[in-house]
């Protein structure tokens, strides 16, 4: 088991190197660079930069170097933990990302807990009460939940709250706390606001997980060990909770591998719509403005989170299922 985890850990740097090349190629790809679009913007407002400043800036950001040198410099800085400077804001990227990364993680975590806390019990109920009215209702809600893109859900909820109650349900903080330093009051304020984005981001995942849980459990409920358990005098409830539920959750754990990364990046669109201060809107803005080092840094963070998500699910799966555990020792 330990060896298996080590193997997986060794894989991380390799993946990160490949991803970094891809990411760099991507943020490099658009024709022109930040400076050209910056100059264009300035020109459109009537002002301009003199030639020396341009050369100075080009040199400062290494834009005058060949691409591979730029990449190597970027990588060296990344390895030193230096995420580089934002071209647009003229600030260190680390500072820009700072709190927003934390909020990204907190939001994803809340959505994740919400998903599992809802999906597992509902899935169990649905499977054990197959073909009852509630089961049909769950199925209907699931289909709709999967079908509504989460930004649509956000829009609909926001529109509803605004038009019915005049409420603006955007953001993660009240206005008073937006710029305030962290305090207990701010955390409480965050908790007051986070539940709605949590539901919006988690709903589709909940619907999917509920469906999978229900289907898995239905499969398990027909297994011969159920007959054996009943024949030993276990009550239906004891039996269902101990064996089939456990066995149908196991394969779900492997879904964490793609679900966690999806939560991190899935919040991106919702965050833009609902004006949530996480790294999503920042990425969007940096991509549109060709702020390549900022975009690159955020993309690398997403890649890293994706890899970690997969790693967590792989380890959990091995830990939970003795059959895989023994195989991979």
């Amino acid at each position: 088991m330990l060896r298996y985890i080590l193997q997986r850990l060794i894989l991380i740097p390799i993946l990160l190197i490949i991803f970094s090349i891809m990411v760099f190629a991507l943020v490099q790809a658009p024709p022109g660079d930040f400076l050209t679009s910056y100059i264009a913007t300035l020109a459109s407002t009537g002002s301009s930069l003199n030639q020396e400043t341009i050369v100075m800036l080009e040199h400062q950001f290494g834009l005058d170097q060949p691409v591979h040198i730029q990449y190597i410099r970027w990588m060296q800085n990344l390895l030193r933990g230096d995420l580089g400077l934002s071209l647009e804001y003229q600030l260190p990227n680390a500072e820009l990302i700072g709190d927003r990364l934390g909020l990204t993680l907190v939001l994803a975590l809340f959505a994740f807990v919400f998903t599992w806390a809802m999906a597992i019990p509902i899935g169990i109920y649905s499977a054990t009460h197959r073909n009852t009215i509630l089961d049909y209702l769950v199925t209907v809600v699931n289909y709709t939940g999967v079908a509504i893109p989460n930004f649509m859900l956000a829009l609909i909820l926001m529109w509803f709250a605004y038009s019915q109650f005049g409420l603006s349900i955007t953001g993660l903080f009240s206005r008073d706390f937006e710029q305030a330093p962290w305090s207990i009051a701010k955390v409480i304020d965050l908790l007051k606001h986070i539940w709605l984005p949590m539901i919006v981001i988690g709903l589709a995942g909940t619907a999917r997980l509920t469906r999978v849980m229900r289907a898995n459990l239905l499969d398990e409920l027909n297994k011969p060990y159920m007959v054996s358990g009943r024949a030993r005098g276990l009550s239906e409830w004891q039996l269902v909770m101990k064996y089939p539920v456990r066995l149908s959750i196991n394969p779900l754990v492997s879904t964490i591998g793609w679900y966690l990364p999806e939560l991190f990046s899935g919040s991106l669109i919702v965050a833009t719509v609902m004006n949530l201060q996480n790294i999503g809107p920042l990425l969007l803005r940096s991509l549109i403005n060709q702020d390549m080092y900022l975009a690159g840094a955020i993309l690398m963070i997403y890649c890293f989170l994706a890899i970690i998500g997969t790693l967590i699910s792989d380890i959990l799966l091995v830990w939970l299922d003795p059959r895989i555990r023994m195989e991979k020792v």
Partner: protein
Amino acid sequence: MDNIEPKILQPEGVAPLEKAEPEIEATAARAETFEEPLTTTQEEERISIASNWTLVWWRFRKNVLAVISTVVLIFLATVVLLPDFFATMSPEKTNARLAFIPVQSIHWLDEGQLKPWVPSVEGKRDPVTLKMLWTTDETQKTYVKFFGSSWSYSVLGLFESNIHLVSGADQTQENQIFLLGTDRLGRDQWSRLAFATRISMTIGMISVIVSVVLGLLLGGISGYFGGWIDNIIQRLIELLQSLPTIPIWLALTAALPRTWSPEKVFFAITIILALRGWTTLAREVRGRFLSLREEDFVLAAELSGASQARIILKHMIPTFTSHIIATSTLAIPVMIVTETSLSFLGLGMRPPAISWGVMLQEAQNIQTLALAPWLLTPGLIVIVAVLAFNLVGDGLRDAADPYSH
């Protein structure tokens, strides 16, 4: 019965006799099973001679929701093929004076007669808030006609037509029909929706087709040949699957040059969507190939000297076609939602191209939405389309292998 059979087909007189005998026996046996209802036997016979496809269809037919969804999809497909037929005016036509006109519903009766019309809309600017206020004037009627003629368009590039689903009854009068209201620039939502449907649906389908081709090809190669090729393809799939999808898609679409024409962007986006789409299918195909390779009939084909391409095409792929169709159907909505999201963020299709996501861009502002909630209608169509594809896909999957659950 013997008389009818042409003599040439019987080399000797014995053949028909031999054939007749078991028949007599069979009837005798059936007679002796007595009250056994004949219908069951026929039903069983029907099932036993039905082809795999017929069986899939029979099972699919029983799934009411899937059948209804199929009808919905067929309707959407018609819109894709003939957006002009559904449109009431040009989707590009702007008119600032007609911005944010609310939904006009068709009234069917006029003075007790069946004569459909829509009320005209009068706009007045509120002197205090400066907001436009629209009032429907029921006395001013624009009569509408179904399947009437209006501007002409080409049908699939084959011939010209000027028939439209809805058009103004009076050709001379300027069209004032806004079945789904208008947007910020006074463009007709209904007509735009028709054209958006065309683009969004085709993006979904084409990217799935590309994914299927790639998935079949690479998955097939991987599963059939194994070895190092398999290894490389598997690592590639793992790599692609561990990428954070949405950010990478965003970065990819952001990298598309602004100067590109809508057609170029369209194809670039389908390719981008397919880039990861193929991996799931390739995995499945590989798995099927691996297990099929062991099957007797493939071995038999190999022994009889069939070429590899022939074995794959003639013997292996047909065994899981229905499954592939089901999986692809389920992949289409994913593509549609992704395209909609990307365009909604301004990184997918760009105006002047019209897609559901592009239309939804107009609905980003909550104040605007509160004023003109009909701007969300493209979103409703997205939900309906996704739902329909999912229901049909699930129905197909259950019909294709009913014992999988």
